[in-house]
């Protein structure tokens, strides 16, 4: 489907596209959170042989909105012994990186008629930056500050332990995750999220998970495990382990501050799932050229929803890991595996690429370069 580059006053559609993407993606993520909560609860209920939410609205769809209104109307309690500034800043510190991370999520590739019969692929993304993946890694690790500071400022021993657990966990899994991501970057040959997705066009065999077998697959598995740990979801939900630490770092939070932590968890779940989709599972690309008639964003959303299902499935199935086992898994198993996958991928890549075809790495190119298709062709292995 080709979209004409319509003129909007002094601007054209291509000019305003990033802003449209900003509003759309942010809006969708914020609005999707309540439905995500509903989706999780219904999926959990299915797995656990019970009904789940079915009272508020059709099939219980409005349940999360009712919960949101309830939280909004709750008294905003501030315990007397908290460090007020940090206490109030913590939920915000957690929310900002979660939302900012979606700036580099490539959702779709639009075919735009630039006039004169020239058709160009323009990504539907807020910031098509060359260091997209580094930006993402940076922001996801910033999230831990929210948790640590919330645990510290609450002046509660359970919160403090939750915060400490979180910092240790995030640091441990950040490493394996970064190694896995670097493997993906090596496979795609770019740190630009859009380029990473474009390099996976074709069939399932062209997705990064299926390249450099079994290295791509191993790195994908490492990434998927680390991503659950990064978002503090079960079975890695130690910072808020209900049966041990009551509610962990957000024990002392009520009303909208608690709601922000809650939304954060779901927003970062969506963002991290989106990154996994873009990095390993072909992003907006369809699994087979025969299915290309389905728009790209539909594939993207389907894949993200599938990942969220995996999150829920894992939560319903697995018991919580113990602190020492969590550390052992991160440092003794995932990190060596991820490191080995990275080194082997790099070696393989260096050996099999003919010397004259070797390109500079990483590929730095302007996102709206006029002769981009040609530039891409020269960089292709």
């Amino acid at each position, binding site marked *: 489907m080709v979209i004409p580059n319509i003129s909007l006053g002094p601007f054209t559609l291509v000019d305003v596209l990033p802003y449209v993407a900003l509003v759309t993606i942010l809006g969708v993520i914020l609005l999707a959170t309540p439905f995500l909560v509903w989706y999780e609860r219904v999926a959990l209920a299915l797995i656990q042989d019970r009904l789940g939410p079915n009272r508020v609205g059709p099939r219980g769809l409005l349940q999360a909105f009712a919960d949101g209104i309830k939280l909004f109307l709750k008294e905003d309690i501030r315990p007397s012994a908290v460090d007020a500034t940090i206490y109030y800043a913590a939920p915000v510190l957690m929310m900002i990186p979660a939302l900012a991370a979606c700036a580099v999520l490539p959702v779709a590739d639009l075919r735009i008629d630039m006039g004169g019969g020239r058709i160009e692929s323009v990504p539907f993304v807020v910031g098509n930056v060359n260091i997209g993946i580094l930006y993402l890694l940076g922001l996801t690790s910033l999230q831990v500050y929210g948790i640590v500071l919330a645990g510290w400022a609450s002046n509660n021993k359970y919160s403090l332990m939750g915060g400490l657990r979180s910092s240790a966990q995030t640091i441990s899994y950040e490493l394996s995750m970064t190694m896995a991501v670097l493997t993906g970057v090596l496979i795609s040959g770019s740190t630009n999220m859009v380029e990473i997705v474009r390099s996976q066009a074709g069939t399932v065999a062209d997705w990064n998970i299926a390249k450099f077998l079994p290295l791509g697959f191993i790195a994908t598995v490492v990434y998927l495990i680390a991503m659950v740990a990064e978002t503090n979801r079960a079975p890695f939900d130690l910072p808020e382990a209900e049966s041990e630490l009551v509610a962990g770092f957000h024990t002392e939070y009520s009303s909208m501050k608690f709601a922000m932590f809650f939304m954060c968890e779901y927003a970062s779940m969506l963002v991290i799932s989106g990154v996994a989709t873009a990095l390993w599972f072909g992003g907006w690309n369809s699994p087979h050229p025969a299915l290309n008639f389905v728009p790209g964003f539909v594939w993207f959303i389907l894949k993200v929803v599938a990942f969220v299902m995996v999150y829920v499935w894992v939560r319903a199935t697995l018991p919580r*890991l113990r602190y020492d086992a969590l550390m052992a898994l991160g440092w003794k198993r995932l990190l060596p595996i991820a490191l080995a996958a990275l080194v082997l991928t790099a070696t393989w890549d260096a050996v099999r690429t003919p010397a004259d075809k070797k390109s500079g790495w990483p590929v730095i190119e302007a996102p709206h370069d006029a002769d981009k298709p040609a530039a891409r062709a020269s960089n292709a292995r």
Partner: protein
Amino acid sequence: MSAKPATGSAIRTLVGMAAANALGITLDPIDETTMVVNMGPQHPSTHGVLRLVMELDGETIVRCTPHIGYVHTGIEKTGEYQTYMKAVTITDRMDYLSAHINNLAYTLAVEKLLGIEIPPRAQALRVMLSEIQRIASHLVWLATHALDIGAMTAYFYAFRDREKLLDLTEMMSGVRLMPSWIVPGGLRGDAPEGWFERCAAVVDELPMRFGEYETLLDQNPIWRERTQGVGCITVDECLNLGVSGPTLRASGLAYDVRKVAPYCGFERYDFHVPVGTFGDVYDRYRVRLAEMRQSREILKQAIETMPDGPVRVGDRKVAPPPRAELDTSMEALIHHFKLWTEGIRPPAGEAYVPVESPKGEIGFYLVSDGSNKPWRMHERPPSFMNLQALPRLCQGRLIADVVAIIGSIDIVLGEIDR
């Protein structure tokens, strides 16, 4: 008035410290590197209102002191002000997860005082009810234990299946949790029509359900990692602390009251006493799962060999006469009147009958002075004895292990505090 008035929080601290000192609780850490954490009485996984004062070095437990008494309601003392028949209902409230077995333990003590033998059908039904209750209680243990370790699906599965067992209790007695159906002299009534068929259907379904739990938990490396080698205790330590039930058997001693001192004709049923080897959380889990299977075997045999006959003794001083007799027999009317106004009058003496509850050995020590109320009523609460092992089990473990260990010794605070 130059002295600065004490602030509210300072006063609260002082009062709190005074209360703590009076109770002998030290809230001061041993040295500067440790932290004292108060777990409970309001905590999601202390199984009621258990309070643990734990001293932590990082996440490692240096010291763990249980504090109990938050639901003490004086049940034993209340029992001394009830007639023998009325006191049955308060025994339900102690270990509310195994009400039938509490009733049975109390009832057997009263019957020993009275020196009566109850009809075979009542004995067989008592066996069935207590085994139904054992499975139901173990299912609640499994559910909460799994939830504490973070496996939430097992919780819903176990509660789903417990419903079917509670339905059986409800069908017979009209009550799900506090039936008081086992009373001195037999049962309050016979099983209703269709009860045995329904019971057989549940019994047939159970093995498949037990298999489901095992698939979900046993084959899961995280579950095994969380439970194996955690909270080990030896047989000697168990015996010194008075620990009984599955916790003792998991350590390797095959002590089951149903085998060593059979009551209600348990010697007539063919079943095994599962034992563990290491006495860790995992062994306790295996022992309880195996016990549920054995209870199911007993249920199956009991349905097949159920004798006919009355479910109450013919002694009119213990059990009321049938309603039809009241219209024609003056004696029956007098007996009925005396029973409901005065109650049973056992001869003076004392009695204790141990019974195997899902938690361990339960028994009521009753002293009769010949009146219609017990002079002294005391329960041997298995949960209370088992809880004594907690500080020993938690020593040097991580805080995440504490919830696994509490779950594995299966305590009910209603029984501990009474």
